[in-house]
């Protein structure tokens, strides 16, 4: 990957970059979860199986992603 200005700033310990990276990681986790849960449902996974895979209860995954 090419050296980005942001990469340089991060290694220069610019807190703005590190803090945004943490936020971005959280958002990425949520977005990947949304995509993976939708795909699992398409593939016939039960809410219980998805909850187990995510380490949360069936109810919480269903209330978050169930339509």
């Amino acid at each position, binding site marked *: 990957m090419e050296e980005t200005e942001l990469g340089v700033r*991060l290694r220069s310990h610019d807190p703005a970059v590190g803090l945004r990276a943490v936020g971005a*990681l959280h958002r990425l986790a949520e*977005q990947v979860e949304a995509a993976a849960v939708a795909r699992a449902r398409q593939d016939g996974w039960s809410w219980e199986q998805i909850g187990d895979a995510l380490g949360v209860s069936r109810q919480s995954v269903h209330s978050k992603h169930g339509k």
Partner: protein
Amino acid sequence: MFEHVAADARMAVTAALEEARHRGDRRIGTEHLLLGVLHARELDPLGTLGLDLTRARAALDALDLAALAAVGIDVRGVERAPVPLSPKRTPFTSAARTTLRRAVGVARQQGGRRIRPAHLLLAILECAPPDPAAEVFRELAVDRAAVRTRLRPHAA
């Protein structure tokens, strides 16, 4: 605070909430207020100054991708989806609350009794780095003075 908010500015705040949730954020920040207010039709002309909803969303995504790359994560090709809306309470960040209060002040200065989308955007334009809305303006290389000038007739 919201009783003096015009219907379209109220819609901007509702849109901000949806933008925040879809992105997977747990709080409504100034960057979401910016996205929310750009839903307002009356601000469409700002597109000629490089400021519109599509570009602002893309700028936020670009900032995230760059930050993730900075910690060694390459998300190209990774399947991502908008996070479903949930009934969970989504509070404002303290900067967003300050910005909303500032919008009340802007409306009052202009002699208006209701907060219009232009008032809200003028308040957002006051945000300074490292505020997330300010980062979007920087990423888009938006000329804030030009935007303010363009907003004047809408804020009156």
